[in-house]
């Protein structure tokens, strides 16, 4: 019996005129989204490669270790083809040097605002918005449409158990709508192979889990459609109701949730944080300068009674030690400042985390948000991309700076490439120019290693959302089940 009913359901979906229209639209959109994502990914890779090459070239052209700086770039990941997430909003690079903070700057959207005007189209977007609408379009009249058409009566004039009927409706519509979608998805995957996207096993695992999440989300809307059509007598009513539910769940709740959270838990702005940081740094440097002046006065005090030659000799003897002493002091200041910065960041991050948790919690009342969040976690384009990259870049900065300092020491005096301005009452002003001798050898400079998003690392934070999606789907289905058992088939 179940088989007969499912067969009929499949046939009814495939034979309906709206099927071919909507199916072709969805197929085109899915393939299009993969294609656009691919092109975008390729452009991003090209940009990334040029940028890193140029940055390396700049390093090679440096003539002194002291002025050696670099930049670290965020690496494009093939998963962004399917889930753009916030990767266009978050900065692409940070400069790596001793004096400035690690901060991702130059987001794609701020560099090229043209792409921010209408934003991105990716598989997640198509699934989240178009496919859910598609699911509603096919299930809004699943029950009440048959009642209106009179076929429900005729069916239940036979020995058909209701449980089997509603189950068949669900399975039939699921198969009828999901199986055709596999075709454009497969074409999309073929495109990946065709364009030689470097997909690792991890990427494939993420991609298939993402497709699984998409189907789960899609299933929710099928179940919702069945539920509403089993609650209402007229298909126009159920359609109206579903469309309103769709607008609310897909378009309104996610945005409203985050905005509400933003208002409940305000977070200090970057400008305020920067202000605090700079204030501290200024204070610390001032202390340092004062101490420095004092030290020089002390050192000079010891010279009071010497002749000019003696002074010169004394200076030559001690200047290296003095410089080392000053240098140590300077490093201490830098360490203090970066320590303070770390603390500030930690604090900011905690407060942001609270805000994010609340915002996402509120928006998760909608399965559309759950789906999107799960997809972003899987793809590694969720908002944690920013702190994770910044942490990695901070580590890299430490490595880079210690490498540079070591080199500086090795290659003599810590002075190479710098210049020194001396005043003393005897010789007046003296500027000693650089002792640098052409290019430096940067072949063994540490290379920035981007944080790796393993499949398991993405799956774990996505689990609650998977759970929620499953829960929503089960709830909708169970409610639809119960509603149909009491449905008046007349």
């Amino acid at each position, binding site marked *: 019996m179940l088989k007969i009913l499912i067969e*009929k359901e499949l*046939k009814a979906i495939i034979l309906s005129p709206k099927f071919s229209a909507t199916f072709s639209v969805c197929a085109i959109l899915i393939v299009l989204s993969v294609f656009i994502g691919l092109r975008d990914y390729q452009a991003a890779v090209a940009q990334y490669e040029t940028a890193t090459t140029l940055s390396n070239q700049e390093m090679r052209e440096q003539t002194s270790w002291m002025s050696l700086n670099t930049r670290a770039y965020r690496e494009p990941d093939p998963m962004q083809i399917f889930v753009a997430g916030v990767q266009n909003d978050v900065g692409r690079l940070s400069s790596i040097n001793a004096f400035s903070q690690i901060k991702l700057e130059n987001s794609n959207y701020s560099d090229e605002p043209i792409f921010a005007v209408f934003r991105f189209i990716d598989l997640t977007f198509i699934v989240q918005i178009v496919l859910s609408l598609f699911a509603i379009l096919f299930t809004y009249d699943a029950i009440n449409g048959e009642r209106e*058409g009179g*076929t429900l009566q*005729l069916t239940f*004039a*036979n020995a058909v158990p209701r449980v089997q009927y509603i189950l068949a409706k669900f399975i039939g519509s699921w198969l009828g709508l999901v199986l055709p979608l596999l075709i454009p998805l497969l074409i999309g995957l073929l495109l990946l192979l065709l364009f030689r996207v470097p997909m690792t096993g991890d990427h494939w695992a993420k991609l298939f889990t993402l497709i699984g999440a998409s189907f789960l989300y899609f299933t929710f809307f099928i179940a919702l459609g069945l539920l509403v059509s089993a609650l209402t007598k007229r298909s126009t009513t159920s359609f109206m109701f579903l469309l309103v539910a769709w607008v609310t769940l897909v378009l309104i709740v996610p945005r409203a949730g985050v905005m509400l959270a933003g208002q409940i838990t305000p977070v200090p702005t970057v400008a305020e944080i920067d202000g605090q940081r700079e204030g501290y740094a200024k204070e610390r440097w001032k202390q340092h300068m004062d101490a420095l002046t004092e030290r020089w006065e002390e050192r000079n005090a010891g010279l009071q009674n010497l002749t000019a030659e003696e002074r010169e000799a004394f200076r030559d003897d001690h200047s290296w030690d003095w410089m080392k002493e000053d240098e140590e002091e300077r490093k201490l200041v830098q360490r203090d400042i970066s320590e303070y910065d770390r603390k500030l960041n930690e604090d900011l991050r905690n407060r942001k985390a609270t805000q994010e948790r609340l915002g996402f919690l509120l928006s998760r009342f909608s399965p559309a948000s759950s789906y999107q969040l799960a997809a972003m976690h899987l793809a590694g384009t969720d908002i944690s991309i920013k702190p994770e990259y910044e942490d990695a870049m901070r580590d890299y900065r430490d490595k880079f700076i210690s490498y540079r300092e070591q080199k500086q020491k090795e290659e003599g005096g810590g002075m190479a490439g710098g210049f020194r301005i001396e005043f003393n009452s005897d010789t007046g002003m003296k500027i000693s120019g650089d002792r640098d001798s052409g290019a430096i050898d940067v072949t063994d400079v540490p290379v920035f290693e981007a944080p790796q998003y393993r499949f398991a690392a993405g799956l774990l934070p996505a689990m609650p959302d998977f759970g929620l999606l499953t829960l929503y789907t089960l709830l909708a289905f169970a409610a639809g089940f119960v509603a149909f058992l009491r449905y008046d088939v007349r």
Partner: protein
Amino acid sequence: METTSTNEAVTNHAVNSPSQSRAMLAADNLTKRYEDGVLALDHVTFEVNQGHIYAMLGGNGAGKTTTINLFLNFIEPTEGEARINGIVTHKEPLRAKEKIAFVSENVMLYPNFTALQNLDFFARLGGQTGYSKDDYREVLLRVGLQEEAHNKRLKGFSKGMRQKCGIAIAILKDAPAILLDEPTSGLDPKAGFEFIRLLESLRDEGKAILMSTHDIFRARDIADTIGIMNQGRIVMQSQKSDIAGEDLEKLYMKYMAGYMEQVN
């Protein structure tokens, strides 16, 4: 509306009183009061044996469709029971429904399926899985649907064609009892005539047939027993032989009027 004791309004023209005999279709004090308080069916009792046609006559809202819905267990009785082959419909609906075929007033099928696809689905739903395409064609020809329509989608079918498909489905199910809800309303005279012939042949095959109709003359032509319903009750029930010579139209009007007087 005041409802006093029931059966005094029913005139029993030599019909066997309802019993636990093995009638194919039996209504036993069947009563339905809807949630809004309307008493749609008021202690209705009748039987239809195999090879018999029972016609329910009555105006709109007399309770004919409610009776059929109760036999199909689309609604549950407030009191009494409907039995099909001795099976109480609201207790074992699935077993009971194996024994009946149903043709509604306005047969609606899947508009995107062809006639053959619709037949195939509903035949299998009715438990008949052994049919071939040729069997379907044969039945469709028997009910008078031309060959060229067999592979057309139901979308463009006229009401008459749809009714023919409906009766074909009922024939295919080959159930011992058939319920028909005003099956001839809206059919042209020729189609109506063919339909009646078809019913007669089904009766001759031994089916028990319960039909509701507005059409007094057709009822007299074909029914073995006629029950006239008004306001949820059977106000007159008589065998074909008893009323053969009478003017059924007058009788109908008389009973309706008489009943109204009695109630008032």
